């Protein structure tokens, strides 16, 4: 392939959605393009599926010299991203017709898509930052799309965190670029292994990218934003965009270069904490989409834990990386399918059979998420666990048990989800249209396939496929607990309630008080102008004028003259 065509192939992936955005602004093109828009992710999908395409190229005229390309990690992420966006696009094509601002939705949808696709291709920091920002800001339009006070609040909080994330990312990238003297992320990762600014840069990256990833305690925007956005947007938000932070960490941290025990410990602990906190908060939600958002927080704990493992034992990193990528792929697809499924159920109008079939369809990704045997979830988890055993950590056994317990939690969460969905399905009114079915089924199929034939994608060998017992016991435990709760109906199940966004409620209260305290008083209006500026009547000027009148008298003037003469004579 010539230089030009390989550049073009890479550029077209993020560019196509943007071109569609431009096209949508032209009234004449609006309707045909709205039909085309759902398919904008197809070039990305094709690129991800064509193994020989995507060799890194340098595009000197773009940004500050862009480097685009696909490595193994990037390919997995691109696959996930493109698939999800395609499915969500098809879904949205039907789902979002009801909105009065249909076109506006597509504009933001496509812009976000462009950013999300672009960042998976970016190998240098500036391109990554550009696409990351494009995605983050455009997603605001998706979150606040419905324009209710709930979505506006969610959007506001999201935007705040985006901006804070942006500036911190900016700081981190500038620092990194300065130290590495290069814009390539792999150079940065190498340099970060050994520099005095390492803690600062890693810290900044953790916060900036952690916001997007939903790392506790920066997670609170997720339970607000995901339910606020229209369903297809929630799907990509939770499935694909949340992974952008992860991808950034994978690319920029000095993984495989150096062992950082401190960071490793911190990340493993944080990962576990997220896994459990997400479950705990999610269980007490009354809305399925909020619950799913908490589930995402919980799920993102696992890749974080994987990164922690990678930092503990650099030698095994390439393998851990594969596992983490696969985990991301699995979670993204499953979560996307779940969100779309929620939308299906809320828009279900038809025979009870159809209803049950739909619920059954939701069960597939739910089980995958729970890590049931023969699902992608089981594969992903076992992949992580395997490298756990290879790591030099002392507490391996404890960790394995804890992971199992986390899976139990996830299963419980899924039970709760099904329960909530069952209740919500009774209130659904409208019927799902063709596009919604297409999008959703596409994801369900892929998720199902993910459990069966993952090998060609991620390089997981067949012998790595987990033993049934390992995968099954957490599920059985969860089933036990769920049955017990169902049967006993303990009082806390009704009275306890974690508000969506947990911490933010407290933060908002404080912020409001602060804002009231520093609120600036309105400026007084411009004073009415006097006809004569006041200073013209200053006492000094009046005095001067009197003196001037005195000087005009001939006698006084004569005396002045004689005085001057005398002084001159004396000098």
């Amino acid at each position, binding site marked *: 392939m010539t230089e030009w065509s390989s550049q073009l192939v890479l550029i077209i992936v993020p560019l196509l959605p943007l071109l569609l955005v431009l096209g949508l*602004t032209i009234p004449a093109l609006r309707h045909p393009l709205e039909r085309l828009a759902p398919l904008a992710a197809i070039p990305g999908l094709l690129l991800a599926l064509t193994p020989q395409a995507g060799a890194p190229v340098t595009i000197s005229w773009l*940004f500050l010299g862009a480097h685009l390309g696909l490595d193994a990690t990037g390919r997995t992420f691109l696959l996930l991203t493109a698939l999800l966006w395609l499915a969500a696009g098809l879904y949205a094509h039907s789902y979002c017709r009801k909105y009065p601002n249909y076109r506006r939705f597509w504009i933001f949808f496509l812009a976000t898509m462009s950013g999300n696709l672009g960042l998976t291709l970016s190998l240098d920091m500036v391109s990554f930052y550009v696409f990351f*920002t494009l995605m983050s800001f455009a997603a605001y339009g998706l979150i606040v799309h419905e324009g209710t006070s709930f979505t506006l609040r969610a959007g506001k909080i999201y935007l705040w965190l985006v901006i804070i994330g942006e500036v911190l990312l900016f700081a981190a990238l500038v620092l990194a670029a300065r130290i590495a003297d290069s814009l390539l992320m792999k150079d940065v990762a190498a340099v970060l292994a050994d520099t005095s600014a390492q803690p600062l840069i890693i810290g900044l990256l953790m916060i900036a990218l952690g916001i997007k990833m939903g790392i506790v305690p920066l997670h609170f925007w997720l339970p607000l934003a995901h339910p606020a956005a229209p369903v297809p947007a929630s799907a990509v938000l939770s499935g694909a965009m949340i992974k952008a932070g992860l991808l950034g960490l994978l690319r920029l941290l000095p993984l495989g270069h150096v062992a950082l025990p401190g960071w490793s410990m911190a990340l493993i602990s944080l990962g576990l904490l997220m896994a459990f906190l997400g479950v705990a908060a999610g269980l007490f939600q009354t809305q399925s989409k909020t619950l799913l958002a908490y589930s995402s927080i919980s799920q993102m704990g696992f890749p974080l834990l994987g990164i922690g493992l990678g930092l503990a034992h650099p030698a095994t990193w390439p393998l851990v990386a594969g596992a983490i990528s696969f985990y991301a792929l699995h979670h993204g697809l499953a979560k996307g399918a779940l969100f779309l499924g929620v939308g299906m159920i809320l828009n279900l109008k038809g025979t009870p059979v159809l209803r049950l079939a739909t619920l059954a369809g939701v069960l597939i990704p739910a089980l995958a998420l729970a890590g049931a045997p023969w699902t992608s979830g089981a594969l992903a988890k076992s992949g992580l666990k395997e490298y756990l055993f290879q790591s030099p950590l002392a507490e391996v056994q404890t960790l394995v048990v804890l992971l199992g317990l986390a899976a139990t939690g996830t299963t419980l969460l899924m039970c709760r989800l099904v329960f909530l969905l069952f209740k919500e399905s009774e209130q659904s009114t409208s019927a799902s249209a063709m596009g919604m079915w297409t999008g959703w089924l596409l994801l369900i199929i892929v998720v199902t396939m993910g459990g069966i034939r993952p090998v060609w994608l991620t390089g997981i060998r067949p012998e790595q496929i987990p033993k049934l017992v390992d995968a099954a016991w957490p599920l059985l435990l969860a089933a036990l607990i769920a049955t017990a709760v169902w049967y006993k109906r303990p009082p806390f199940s009704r009275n306890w309630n974690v508000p969506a966004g947990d911490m933010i409620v407290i933060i908002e209260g404080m912020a409001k008080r602060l804002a009231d305290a520093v609120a600036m008083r309105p400026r007084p209006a411009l004073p009415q102008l006097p006809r004569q*500026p006041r200073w013209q009547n200053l006492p000094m000027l009046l005095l001067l004028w009197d003196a001037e009148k005195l000087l005009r008298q001939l006698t006084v003037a004569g005396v002045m003259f004689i005085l001057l003469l005398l002084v001159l004579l004396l000098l």
Partner: protein
Amino acid sequence: MNDLILLAILSSSLLPGLIIFTLAEESVRLRTTLNLTGALFKLLFIALLFFRVAEREYAELRLPLLADMELVLRADALSMLFLTLSAFLWLLTTIYAIGYLENSPHRSRFFGFFSLCVSATTGIALAGDMITFVIFYEALTISTYPLVVHRGTPAALHAGRIYLAYTLLGGVVLFFAAVWLRAIAGPLEFTPGGVISGLDPSLYGSLTIIFALLVLSLGVKAALVPLHSWLPTAMVAPAPVSALLHAVAVVKAGAFGIVRVVHDIYGIGFSADLNLLFPLSVMAAITVLYGSIRALAQNDLKRRLAFSTVSQVSYILMGIALASPLATIGGLVHLVHQGLMKITLFFCAGNLAETLGIHKIDEMDGVGRRMPWTMTAFTVGALGMIGVPPLVGFISKWYLGLGSLAAGQPWIIIILIASTLLNACYFLPVLHRIWFNKEQQQWSKSTLAGGRETIWPLLAPPLITAALVIFFGIFAYLFGSPLYWVELITTREYGL
């Protein structure tokens, strides 16, 4: 060797301006033709020069003044940067002003002074020594006054008085400092690397004071805090004036002057040796933050933009004061970038005022639906100001950040972050209002053919500048892009 092309560049706005003064109010077509021809010719001449300067062939023109003093016009790379910016934006603003002032009184007067202003700005850009610079700098001060008070309301006159008081005080101090420096150091030709580093060390005290005076006096126009008050007040001027002059020509003239002083009079190395740059960077940093904080509290759109200008122009100074090549790139490129972004914003604010009578931010609810194009341009400008990549504002901030690290002053990064946050705080709510809030008042429906929101002269300029904001951000390294030029300048300045 005298290059008459410089004279041609200067007179391509001066002559039309002078002729326009004599025109009757009704001769719209002739006036428009003159204006546009002048602007196009200026761009043409600049384009002719462009390649010569890129090849390091500097055009020069010298006229003797009094005895051993000369009026020096020279086009070096830095001149070209400012010159191209002002000439290009002049063309756009002229188009805009033609639309904006349709049917309003005193148009000949307006366009006449407008052309004079641009000529003065051109002169500032082309000035090859301190004296020439001072001459055109003062000319700019005076020729802007009629534009500030153009509306003739008491508020406008009040603003004009304040403007004059500030800028003339600054001008007098600048004048004094220039004379003093000339008396100490002889002819003050702008030379990369500075001209005064060879002076006797016993003069260093005086040189420090002169530097402070120069920076303070130029800082009046560059709206350095605490010398900035005139700028928000001057926002009563018509929108094209606010757009071109307050966003670009006047404040940039101050910033450009400081660049000249630091680079081409004192020289970066020498000013760093005298410890002059750190206070400057602190001042700039304070201005950056102060401007943003004040902008937060403004409800008047143009005032908010004005305080934003106060803040943004000091990025340039910060970049200069950091004295590292990368920071210099960041500062200088912001000279152009900020101009593009801010002029977009002011054009849009003018469109709102002219078409819908909106002046206050809380009247802007849902205006995105009524004027989608204008508001798209506004959004691009605002996001650029925040520094959202890949818009031009990001490029500036990126280089400033890198430069501050290279200069060993990482605290600047914190300023950049804080400023970005503040920018977001005062721009994003506006954007939200525009696009996501319900319309609260009924605006007259567009009566133009094809459903256009307003007439072309008002619509095209902001769209063009907004497109450039995106274009120069994405294709930052293209030949002739601001970043390309600025790298050229910086390489020459630092002798890299």
